[in-house]
């Protein structure tokens, strides 16, 4: 028995000397489940080929703000792939787990893929919703998550606000009036994008879902094109979900190198193709052209151009007592 154990141990040691087992934790936002399931498998294959090591990437998903709060409180993510830069800024400023200039470390402001906000309506578009101004009509029920906890919801709110700014000649009062009317039509706020999608698609509540473009396409894939259709508005926001290595955690786990490569590989042809297949708009032009059929052309405004910066947008609109708190009254 003892010799047997010794042999086992010896085998174990030789095996571990040949190939290391590495584990990464990717803390991500709600709708990226399918994207990272596919990407993690591809990256593991790539990393095995490059170094001979086996890498397992564990995933945690939830509302972007909530996930950032988790990392701040000690959820030991090696990498974060969140819905918006402000949430990673919070990790940098409140927990000091990565430098404040994290966004300049990877190309395209550390955003390997982009997305936007579109409308998902029921088949045949019974309420005839074509563009943003149709959302404020009486009797239209809008499903959208809570911008306090969900990144997608903040993008959706800003997309609507940007539409109003563009339409009413950047008149803040008129834009506020529009957004007030829009949120009057929102009966419930789920905490994350996936919760809202299930409320709308599975539970049959509401006339229109303000959704991530990738999430809307996923609904068509999961629930069939017979039940829903996507309406692309004339204008929307360029949503930029960034990625970053959480330096302190990665250093602690001795995973700095593999974590950095994990994010860098998102920019490779294979990474970009997986993003495009999962309906995230790739940064790589050649791959964007190849998958052009997945993405409807529309006017996309950037956050910086309409709102200055995330810090400013957050303070004006989503902080306690900000515009969102002023205009939204929960209806019971």
């Amino acid at each position, binding site marked *: 028995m003892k010799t047997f154990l010794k042999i086992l141990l010896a085998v174990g040691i030789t095996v571990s000397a040949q190939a290391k087992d590495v584990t990464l934790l990717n803390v991500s936002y709600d709708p990226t489940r399918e994207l990272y399931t596919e990407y993690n498998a591809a990256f593991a294959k790539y990393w095995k080929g490059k170094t001979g090591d086996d890498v397992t990437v564990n*995933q945690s998903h939830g509302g972007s703000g909530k996930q950032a709060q988790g990392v701040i*409180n*000690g959820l030991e993510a090696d990498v974060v792939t969140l819905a918006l830069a402000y949430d990673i800024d919070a990790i940098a400023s409140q927990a000091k787990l990565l430098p404040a200039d994290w966004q300049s470390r990877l190309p395209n402001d550390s955003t390997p893929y982009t997305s936007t906000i579109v409308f998902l309506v029921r088949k045949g578009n019974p309420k005839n919703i074509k563009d943003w101004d149709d959302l404020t009509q009486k009797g239209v029920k809008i499903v959208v998550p809570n911008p306090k906890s969900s990144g997608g919801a903040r993008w959706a709110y800003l997309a609507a606000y940007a539409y109003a700014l563009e339409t009413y000649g950047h008149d803040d009062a008129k834009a506020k009036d529009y957004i007030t009317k829009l949120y009057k039509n929102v009966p419930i706020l789920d905490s994350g994008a996936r919760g809202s999608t299930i409320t709308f698609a599975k539970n049959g509540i509401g006339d229109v879902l303000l959704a991530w473009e990738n999430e809307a396409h996923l609904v068509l894939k999961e629930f069939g094109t017979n039940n829903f259709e996507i309406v692309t508005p004339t204008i929307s926001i360029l949503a930029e979900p960034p990625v970053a290595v959480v330096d302190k955690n990665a250093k602690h786990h001795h995973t700095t190198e593999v974590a950095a490569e994990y994010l860098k590989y998102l920019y490779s042809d294979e990474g970009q193709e997986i993003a495009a297949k999962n309906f995230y708009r790739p940064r790589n032009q050649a791959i964007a052209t190849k998958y052009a059929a997945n993405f409807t052309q529309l006017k996309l405004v950037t956050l910086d151009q309409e709102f200055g910066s995330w810090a400013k947008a957050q303070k004006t609109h989503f902080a306690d007592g900000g515009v969102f708190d002023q205009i939204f009254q929960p209806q019971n």
Partner: protein
Amino acid sequence: MTPAGTTLHVPHHPARRHTRSEPPYVRRLLIGTALTFIGLFLILPLLFVFTQAFAKGIGFYFHSIDEPMAWSAIKLTLLAAGISVPLNCVFGVCAAWAIAKFDFYGKNVLLTLIDLPFSVSPVIAGLIYVLVFGTQGWLGLYLNADHPALPWLANWLNDHNFKIIYAVPGIVLATIFVTFPFVARELIPLMQAQGRSEEEAARVLGASGWQVFWRVTLPNIKWGLLYGVILCNARAMGEFGAVSVVSGKIRGQTNTIPLHIEALYDDYNFTGAFAVASLLALLALVTLGLKTWVEHKNAAVLDK
């Protein structure tokens, strides 16, 4: 009960007739309402869980349960229940014994505190643990301090990557918190009703404290204790709120069965979610069966 067909005159027969004096339609209405409620709110959802679980066939059902993520959730749930139930069992017996058999200052405070987990929302309970044990909380401040008190302890904890929140200890802690009152709450009234006379008699006859406990108290409360343990276990395995806050929801690592069900549901894998949910439903049925059996035994003991 009178056997059917007997001509024996049962003395309390008139009284029984009196209690059934309502007209038949009232009786039918009452029974009908009760049955409809049970059917609508208990039987139907239960049937729904099982039909949904097998919606894609028996192969898919077993595939959903027999995969690494599901196994890890099942193991974690068993571990959390396996630690919290015995601990709460010991605590419950101690607390009930102290409260029922002794008079001391602050007894009512202790009684109230035992009920705290029933009155606090589980989500708040989870948040309290995050605030205390998170990296921004007391523990984090201590571990990250430049000059901590007891430096050897801080170093040892850091070297061993000591973690409570977003790891297994946090899940166990949260489970202990929410299941805290079950055993104690079950035993206190029972032990109070039994009084102290048997224990006192044993003492007078020369038994030691342990002898009194093992030979007199424990045999008297065993069925009540088992009943508390069963309820405690059911809650420990099914707890969602508190655990969801402290888990971090890392798939294959910190997801318990209820959290794994939520993850599957959010992945649009509804059938898989119901398949795993059927495990919890089965647990509920087993619990119910055991509970009835123990209640029956307990009643027999009390009647004696």
